[in-house]
């Protein structure tokens, strides 16, 4: 219900206040997460390259790590790792903020002022994460693929040129699009779960802590399950 209502209010997102709020949330939810996303994306690509490269080298096929890393990053690990980071950092922060606002009666104050909390608080965060999640996922993919190239060049004797040529050979546009679709869905999931848990908060500071914890757990589980469902829909044997 809350999600439907937030979508219904998106028509007003170009008005001045919501527009500023969306930009602010894009900065808070996206730009401020770039540091941790860089580290996680880089090491995810490096681990993928090392693990697949070591196995492939036994058969003399290590030059194929470019494809392995790129496809896995685009389809799964890029959107998945980005979503986990955003759920843990941004989702938990949204839940804590909404929860604190609920227990300190700020949400009730908005209602009495006839300011719809979904329009005022949820919609800008939803739009911001729907924009930022795919962008951050593209960034995670790029960093991860580059991390794989570094491992290939330094530890598996696969030159950068060979790595990227191999990646281009087998990775498809579909891999990128499916990954971005997942990122978009994960953005919606994280915002909805976080805001819903925040609005349901009771019992003061303890309740805020519980809402934050539930947000992270529910988001993680939902991301995993939806990730599988989307993969199953687009990739069949």
């Amino acid at each position: 219900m809350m999600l439907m209502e937030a979508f219904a209010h998106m028509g007003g997102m170009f008005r001045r206040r919501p527009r500023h709020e969306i930009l602010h949330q894009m900065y808070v939810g996206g730009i401020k997460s770039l540091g941790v996303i860089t580290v996680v994306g880089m090491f995810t690509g490096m681990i993928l390259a090392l693990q697949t490269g070591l196995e492939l080298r036994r058969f003399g096929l290590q030059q194929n790590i470019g494809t392995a890393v790129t496809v896995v990053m685009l389809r799964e690990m890029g959107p998945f790792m980005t979503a986990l980071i955003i759920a843990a950092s941004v989702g938990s922060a949204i839940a804590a903020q909404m929860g604190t606002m609920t227990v300190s009666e700020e949400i009730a104050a908005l209602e009495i002022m006839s300011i719809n909390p979904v329009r005022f608080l949820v919609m800008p965060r939803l739009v911001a994460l729907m924009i930022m999640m795919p962008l951050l996922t593209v960034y995670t993919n790029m960093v991860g693929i580059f991390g794989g190239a570094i491992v290939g060049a330094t530890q598996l004797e696969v030159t950068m040129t060979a790595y990227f040529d191999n990646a281009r050979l087998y990775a498809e546009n579909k891999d990128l699009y499916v990954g971005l679709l997942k990122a978009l869905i994960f953005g919606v999931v994280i915002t909805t779960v976080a805001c819903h848990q925040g609005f349901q908060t009771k019992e003061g500071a303890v309740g805020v802590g519980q809402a934050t914890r539930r947000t992270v757990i529910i988001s993680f589980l939902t991301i995993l399950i939806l990730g599988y469902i989307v993969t199953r829909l687009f990739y069949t044997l």
Partner: protein
Amino acid sequence: MIRFEQVEKRFGSKKVLDGVNFEIKKSEIFIIVGLSGAGKSVSLKHMVRLLTPDSGRVWVGDDVVSEARGAELERIRARFGYLFQSGALLAWMSAGENVGLPLREHTRKPDEDINGIARDKMRLVHLEEAYDKMPADLSGGMRKRVSLARAIVRDPEIVLYDEPTSGLDPLTSRTIDKLIRDTRDELGVTSIVVTHDLHSALSIGDTIAMLHEGKMVEMSPPKQFIQSRHPVVRSFLESQYITTRGAWEQESTQP
């Protein structure tokens, strides 16, 4: 102006309001007192449909607020200002922005006009200098005064005050009392005040009502209220050292 008809409300097994009936007249300062958990704030929240009764009706003028939805509820709520116990200011906005928020959301007035009105309301609560301060930089009393400025920024007909003086020092409490009285005198608003503070209630109230275990046990003007023979009222008065007519008169004659 506001009428409760046989209002009942339960939270789990606890009956918080048990067939409550009362009526508040226009421009009246109506005080609701009682022990913690007596149903005072719950009554207040029913008036703006933050809570709905399990049975009974709450009227605001000719509207049944307890059954209102959507645009009708918005129209009814626009008649109210609400001062929350905590102030309930939005933490990421300055005091002035908080005060101007309802106008920004509901009118097409230019920013300069909204800022001007917000400054006027801040002046009314003697806090013009705090216009650009963030809520975290304000004391409890200042936050309540900013919240009061926000509550009256749309010139409401009715202002609800939830524990306006709780946690404040006596001097600040009296300032808030004076503001409540001034708001009524200058703007003609109907004021409903929920409080534990009988001294405050006796000095500003036109009518004082006492809730006890979900029932209205006394409702009368201050002079009659302190003479009530109801044991719960007597005990409540005595707990705040208001045992004689003189004690109240001394309080009420303070400037």
